């Protein structure tokens, strides 16, 4: 059998995910500035422009950056399908940043043209991203539950892009769509549960056993979680058939929220509990600062359903703001921050050091990033979540601005952490971007001509090895890189 050229050439260059990851600290800084300038005005009502700007700095400037960068990196490895035109990712990133800048500027008092510019940028950026990733995920070599979760997340992103662009038009001089509250509810459901929740679930099934030696969740449970999530994403659509009318005392927005309950229970209750149990049962209970983020993020997830129900039942807008704050900056961003502190050192080690193992001394992955630096990030991030909660409940201007300061500290610490790790290069390697006489190292092993190295050389699809895996009917499989 042949490997079909599962090659490093197929994986995206480190610069692709790194570009997205390095854009996260500026996103956090934008959120920090909004809080520092506006104080409690950004935390008073979910419908205030400053609050919308703050929420989207979090979702587009922080979460989307991390998730899109991770998808570019993980799709070839997990789905066994190369992402076409990988370098387009740089353009996707630039357009996303431009869109975010226009969006926030308009909401903070800029001209309507800024939103028009943002809408065009978002459309182009997300369309290119969806086409690239959609192409890869529609024809994966393996159809594991993680791949299904990634597909569901991508479908949700497509839907929230359409709905989001439709609603953003209301800020660019056009009118908002009819039944705006209902559309907001569906937008929220698909964004938080489908896009963010679906991807966090799918990625955790790979990352937690791989990096922490925690027991893997069984396939049946994964399939059940995905089924419930899908149901909770489809059911809210039923509210669109209410024609904006109240039924049995329930508004269309409330009907949509109730429809999302199966997904909410899975993403914010069952999955966090299962994952926390899995983490507690890991084989080697070595202390790891990145686990602090996972535990805190999953713990915050458990608060989200009670807070969401309270926000639905009580007219006080603070509960809705609190829900958004905990969901975006507590649950999702904490988990992403934790993942970054583990995945970025891994990628740097893999791209820059793994080829040298056995040929020269190579640092361990853990030595690329100190635990203290990760702990400092956790203290800053988690305290900003807690102070933010107090600022929302008490509507305290001082606490809101203090939260802004802590967010700025989190951004600076994260930026310094990412730059520190990404700057690491092997001894003897030339600075990045310049040709090196010693990189890649001279291998003492001749490469036999029988081994196919690239897609072109095999004349077939990449990751043929994974295709064979998928097609093998038995519970185990065997393959090799032997020539036919």
């Amino acid at each position, binding site marked *: 059998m042949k490997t079909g050229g*599962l090659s490093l050439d197929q994986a995206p260059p480190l610069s692709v995910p790194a570009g997205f990851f390095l854009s996260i600290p500026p996103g956090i800084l934008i959120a920090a500035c909004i809080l520092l300038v506006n104080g409690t005005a950004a935390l008073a009502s979910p419908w205030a422009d400053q609050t919308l700007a703050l929420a989207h700095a979090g979702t587009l400037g922080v979460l989307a950056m991390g998730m899109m960068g991770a998808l570019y990196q993980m799709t070839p490895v997990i789905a066994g399908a190369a992402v076409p035109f990988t370098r387009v990712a740089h353009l996707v990133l630039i357009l996303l940043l431009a869109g975010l800048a226009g969006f926030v500027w308009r909401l903070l008092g800029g001209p309507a043209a800024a939103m028009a510019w943002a809408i065009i940028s978002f459309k182009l950026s997300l369309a290119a991203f969806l086409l690239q990733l959609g192409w890869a995920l529609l024809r994966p070599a393996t159809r594991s539950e993680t791949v299904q979760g990634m597909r569901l997340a991508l479908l949700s992103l497509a839907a929230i892009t359409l709905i989001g662009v439709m609603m953003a038009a209301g800020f660019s001089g056009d009118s908002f769509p009819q039944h705006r509250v209902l559309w907001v509810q569906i937008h929220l459901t698909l964004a938080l549960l489908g896009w963010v929740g679906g991807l966090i679930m799918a990625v955790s099934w790979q990352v937690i056993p791989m990096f922490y030696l925690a027991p893997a969740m069984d396939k049946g449970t994964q399939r059940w979680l995905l089924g419930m999530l899908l149901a909770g994403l489809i059911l809210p659509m039923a509210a669109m058939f209410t024609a904006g009318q109240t039924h049995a005392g329930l508004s269309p927005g409330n009907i949509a929220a109730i429809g999302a309950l199966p997904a909410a229970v899975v993403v914010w209750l069952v999955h966090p509990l299962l994952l926390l149990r899995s983490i507690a049962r890991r084989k080697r209970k070595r202390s790891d600062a990145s686990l602090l983020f996972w535990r805190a993020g999953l713990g915050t997830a458990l608060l989200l359903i009670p807070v969401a129900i309270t926000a639905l039942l009580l007219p006080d807008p603070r509960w809705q703001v609190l829900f958004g704050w905990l969901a975006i900056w507590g649950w999702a961003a904490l988990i992403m921050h934790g993942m970054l502190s583990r995945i970025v050192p*891994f990628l740097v080690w893999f791209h820059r050091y793994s080829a040298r193992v*056995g040929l020269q001394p190579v640092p361990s992955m853990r030595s690329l990033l100190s635990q203290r630096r990760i702990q400092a990030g956790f203290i800053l991030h988690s305290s900003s979540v807690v102070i933010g909660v107090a600022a929302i409940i008490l509507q305290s201007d001082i606490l809101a601005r203090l939260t802004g300061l802590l967010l700025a500290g989190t951004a600076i610490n994260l930026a310094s952490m990412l730059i520190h790790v990404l700057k690491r290069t092997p001894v003897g390697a030339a600075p990045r971007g310049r040709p090196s006489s010693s990189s890649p190292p001279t*291998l003492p*092993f001749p*490469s036999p001509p029988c*081994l196919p*190295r690239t897609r072109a050389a095999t004349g077939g699809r990449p990751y043929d090895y994974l295709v064979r895996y998928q097609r093998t009917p038995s519970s185990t499989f065997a393959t090799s*890189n032997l020539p036919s």
Partner: protein
Amino acid sequence: MVKSVSYKFSVLGSQVPEIVDLRDLEAPGPMEKVLLACSQLVVGEFFLAHVPRVPVMLFPQLESRGLRWWVHEEADQSALLLIRKEA
């Protein structure tokens, strides 16, 4: 176990090398150990490891070093990885 391994990897015949168990290592520990061991192989020698999962990201590294590999995934998703250094 020896019989079972030689059944899974017919290339081994009756000469089954010692299985190095790397299942209790976090990523990228197994990759590092395998590459380190492979750098010390002599021509024709085998290296056999039990790894936590099919090491998809390791295969390109092995190929770039001119090593032949065979992998057998177990029911628990761990994998037996056999590597031989070619002449």
